[in-house]
């Protein structure tokens, strides 16, 4: 029987060096959510939102931490980095806004769609950020 206290927690250190192979934490989460029996569309929403956040930490913040908390009715994703912070969150949330450099764009990133995707695929999203200190993004998806 599943009780409300039955939460499963995952923690990942997201390496900031290697942006050609970033996304491993999200891929591992996908496997775990499958094993836990979540429906495909829930898995898709959680892992796409997490992937965008994971990639952002690698590209824009030199890595960080990802924590995922799975309870029966909700999946919570917390991404925290000690990067440069986001100066204007409203601007960063706009589709098409990106500060990605050319070498990153050559890999297919930099459409300025990551943060909008995170909002689109989750039920709630909160950004806490401070210049020179870092960024913490908390997202939830109802299962």
């Amino acid at each position, binding site marked *: 029987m599943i009780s409300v206290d039955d939460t499963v927690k995952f923690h990942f250190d997201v390496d900031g060096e290697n942006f050609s192979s970033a996304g491993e934490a999200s891929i591992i989460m996908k496997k775990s959510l499958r094993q836990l029996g979540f429906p495909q569309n829930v898995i898709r929403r959680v892992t*796409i939102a997490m992937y965008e956040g994971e990639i952002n930490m690698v590209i824009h913040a030199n890595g960080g931490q990802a924590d995922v908390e799975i309870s029966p009715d909700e999946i919570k994703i917390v991404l925290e980095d000690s990067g440069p912070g986001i100066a204007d969150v409203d601007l960063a949330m706009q589709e098409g806004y990106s500060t990605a450099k050319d070498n990153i764009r050559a*890999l*297919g990133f930099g459409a300025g769609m990551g943060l909008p995707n995170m909002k689109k695929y989750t039920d709630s999203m909160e950004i806490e950020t401070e210049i020179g200190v870092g960024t913490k993004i908390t997202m939830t998806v109802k299962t």
Partner: protein
Amino acid sequence: MRLDQLAEKLDLKHICGSTDREYDGVYAGDLLSWVMSNASADNIWITIMSNLNVIAVASLTEVACVLLAEDVTLSDEALKAAEEKNITVFSSGKTAYELCVAIAKAEEE
């Protein structure tokens, strides 16, 4: 239509992964988070991107396969990841546009 049936009609080169899966629709694009936003599960994803991140995006979006246009080849590490994650990859000498036209024709036949 199944991927193997389409591959035969279009003379696609099979790079890796299973081909007996049905596909549903096509999405063409190279900007990864744009693809994340707009590709649907079971789509054929046509792209000229070939690095490791393509495999991650294909896995997370649950597309039916990656179809590399213009004879683009996967990097060794991307090929290895595709095999590990059981992602189906094809390639073709055609451009993305030519592939879209050819797929539409094949579906009408």
